[in-house]
């Protein structure tokens, strides 16, 4: 990604300060979320707030927008001190916020969502015609077209984000806070989104862009403020900043990329032969998917989310049955598609959504650690649980996989994302699986935790496991996968060895275009179907 052409700070040398945070401190229980943060935003500027998950970026912005009240510190907007703890006051002073988890009501229309709170609550009617006109005019001006009468539930993620931005613009926001806006977008949508941001800045807005992705920060911002453990550790101009410099500031130490040894793949572990799965509610279809994964091999599936990755994962987890085609594990055809049978056949699963599918938040680390093997005689006999063995097992997982922060008897929901993922990894790998399904294993994790997950997957590969890695992060795939296939509208391309394909080529395949024939001719029949 190249740097944004817009650099307001050079065009307007003496730009005024529109927002000033002074000494913001916020404590949650024993966690110091924000520690004496002082920050300024200048007019027409894009300020990036960079930091790992849990560094305090969102907390800081939630204080600014009035969701939280800071324990100490003050906020000035356009020279005026703001009353904290009231989103209403923030909106009045021209602050708008696009939340990471959209704050939209799915069952209401776009116009309803935008107009909410803009009219006096007790007026006897709602002037929807002028609201619609204003919305359309804003959409026109900033390239944010969206049908005002559409129900939010019908909109794509990208469109919902447009509605969120329109909500702020409708209320004449001068300062827009964008909390991890690209986390939910595809690479293509991100490009369009950046175009929108440029239009916003040229339309006179000042932006705060929260992210943990360094490339994006370098591409779009004028200035970067780096947060770490609730502290502002660095503030610098984007121009001239390097990715390594930012990464250092963000993590506070050097991250070593895991080493990837060249290995020779063995016999086939998982073989899908023209598997077709019908589309169901919330689950896209698969049409004639063929795939082969061998011992000591990581095969990656790339693609824009919603193209059938979840169906592949559900199939291998035993949650869905194929309508036609066969699934073979270790040369045997699988007939019984249940999660238990798949576990029995030594399939380890790292699910996409840790919170809803990976762990049971209110149960303890120990209980979660044996949730896939609680029936084994060491953990239960004659209907009685063996709590001692469970405890030992859990403590072993906790220490071996470096799960930090809480004891084996604490509820899992208290863990951070990275530690939760380590626990799941520990649970899966302790079962010595022969096939590991890793669905978006690095999603939402910080740089250090991602490196740890990759290291563990590579170690499992060395120990002879076959690994299916589903990811939307192309760099992740190119870093650790041996072969990469691309899924688009339920069809899986042939798989390409990592050396023979580039990010650009993968990107094209993800949009459904065919790769131009190259010298490598690995199983082209998969593509022909």
């Amino acid at each position, binding site marked *: 990604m190249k740097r944004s052409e817009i650099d307001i700070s050079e065009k307007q040398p003496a730009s005024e300060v529109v927002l000033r945070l002074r000494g913001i401190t916020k404590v*949650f229980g024993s966690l110091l979320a924000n520690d004496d943060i002082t920050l300024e935003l200048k007019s027409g500027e894009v300020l990036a707030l960079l930091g790992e998950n849990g560094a305090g970026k969102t907390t800081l912005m*939630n204080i600014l*927008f009035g*969701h*939280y*009240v800071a324990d100490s510190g003050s906020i000035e907007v356009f020279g005026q001190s703001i009353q904290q*703890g*009231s*989103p*209403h006051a*923030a*909106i*009045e002073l021209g602050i708008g*916020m696009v*939340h990471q*988890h959209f*704050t*939209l*009501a*799915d*069952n*209401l229309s776009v116009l*309803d*969502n935008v*107009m*909410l*709170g*803009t*009219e*006096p*609550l*007790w*007026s*006897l*009617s*709602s002037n929807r015609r002028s609201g619609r006109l204003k919305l359309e005019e804003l959409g026109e001006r900033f390239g944010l077209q969206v049908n005002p009468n559409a129900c939010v539930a019908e909109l794509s993620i990208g469109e919902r984000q447009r509605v969120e931005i329109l*909500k702020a613009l409708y209320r004449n926001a001068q300062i827009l806070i964008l909390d991890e806006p690209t986390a939910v977008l595809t690479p293509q949508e991100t490009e369009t989104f950046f175009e929108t941001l440029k239009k916003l800045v040229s339309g006179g807005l000042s932006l705060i862009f929260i992210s943990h992705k360094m490339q994006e920060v370098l591409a779009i911002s004028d200035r970067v403020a780096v947060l770490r453990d609730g502290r502002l550790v660095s503030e610098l101009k984007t121009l001239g900043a390097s990715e390594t410099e930012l990464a250092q500031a963000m993590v506070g130490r050097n991250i070593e990329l895991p080493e990837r040894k060249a290995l020779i793949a063995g016999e086939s572990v998982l073989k899908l032969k023209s598997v077709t799965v019908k589309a169901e509610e919330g689950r896209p279809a698969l049409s004639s998917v063929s795939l082969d994964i061998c011992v000591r091999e990581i095969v990656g599936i790339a693609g824009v989310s919603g193209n059938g990755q979840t169906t592949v994962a559900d199939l291998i987890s035993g949650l869905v049955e194929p309508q036609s085609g066969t699934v073979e594990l270790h040369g045997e055809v699988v007939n019984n598609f249940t999660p238990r049978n798949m576990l029995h056949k030594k399939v380890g699963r790292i699910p996409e959504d840790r919170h809803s599918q990976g762990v049971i938040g209110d149960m303890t680390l120990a209980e979660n650690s044996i949730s896939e093997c609680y029936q084994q005689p060491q953990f239960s006999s004659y209907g009685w649980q063996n709590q001692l063995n469970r405890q030992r097992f859990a403590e072993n997982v906790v220490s071996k996989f470096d799960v930090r922060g809480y004891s084996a008897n604490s509820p899992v929901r208290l863990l951070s994302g990275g530690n939760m993922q380590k626990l799941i990894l520990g649970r899966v790998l302790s079962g010595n699986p022969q096939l590991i399904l890793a669905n978006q294993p690095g999603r939402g994790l910080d740089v250090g935790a991602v490196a740890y997950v990759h290291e563990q997957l590579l170690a499992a590969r060395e120990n002879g496991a076959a690994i299916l890695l589903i990811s939307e992060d192309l760099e992740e795939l190119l870093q650790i996968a041996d072969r990469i296939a691309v899924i688009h509208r339920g069809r899986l391309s042939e798989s390409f060895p990592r050396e023979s394909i580039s990010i650009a080529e993968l990107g094209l395949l993800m949009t459904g275009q065919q790769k131009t024939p190259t010298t490598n001719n690995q199983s082209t029949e998969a593509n022909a179907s």
Partner: protein
Amino acid sequence: METSFAWLEIFLNASFWVAAVRIATPLIFGTLGEVICERAGVLNLGIEGIMTIGAMVGWMAVYQGAGLWSGVLLAAVCGGVFGLLHAMLTVPLGLSQHVTGIGITLLATSLSSYVYRLILPEVSSPPRIQAFEPLEIPGLSSIPIIGEALFKQTPLTYFAFISVVVVAYVLYRTPVGLAVQMVGENPAAAEAQGLNVTIIRTGAVVCGSAFMAVGGAFLTMSAFNAFFFNMINGRGWICIALVVFASWRPGKALLGALLFAAFDAYQMRLQQLVGAEIPYQIFLMMPYVLSILALIVMSRRVGYPQALMIPYRKGER
């Protein structure tokens, strides 16, 4: 031959339709009140008790010499107070809405009986009051069957029909209605737009509870003209089911209430027709069985308010 069509002739009898609309009235108020609460994201199982309070207060006020409409107003205010109690416990404190609601019902029901006994310690049979008289709308009431059913009712029934229109208008056409819908769909979104979720939810529960109480007051002030123990007799719970049947829409709530009331009026007439050959309990059961069947058919694709029964605490992580 004569009896074989008698079960159909019931429908041609104007008194059947009049009864259906009369029976529907408290259900319309109750369902409307529950729709308002649930649209704002708060399940109000206090409805049964709040209707009892309304029935007792309205009737007692009139018995003590107040005017009929003052009685209705007083019933609504008392209902609102219990709604406020429910809202205080479930909205800012975020307690379980089920448990709180059932608690409110038990409290309000017992309190009604207690206050009744406190004021009238020595009466053996509840005294009757001079209740609302049917108000004939000239012209319209002479339309055969329908005219009598719709335009020869007591004022509270007309008020129920008007309330449906008003609530539907407020809910779908005014800013405050949009705010109520939003706090029931996604309170975080409402807050991000600068609204106070606690106040809106509380207001909706108070307002909805006032409607419920008026539904209860109808029973003592327009139907039975006296207050008995257990007189609500599960009508509140029927309203809870009718809300689901109506997919949280005021118009469909009216339809559902009328339909249920029609079943009820019909079974009473059928009982008389069949006599003792079939135990009368079977007939009593009929409207409930039919409403369960209707629920099964109608509720397959209902859209719950997304935040129904989910407490919202500001600034929580």
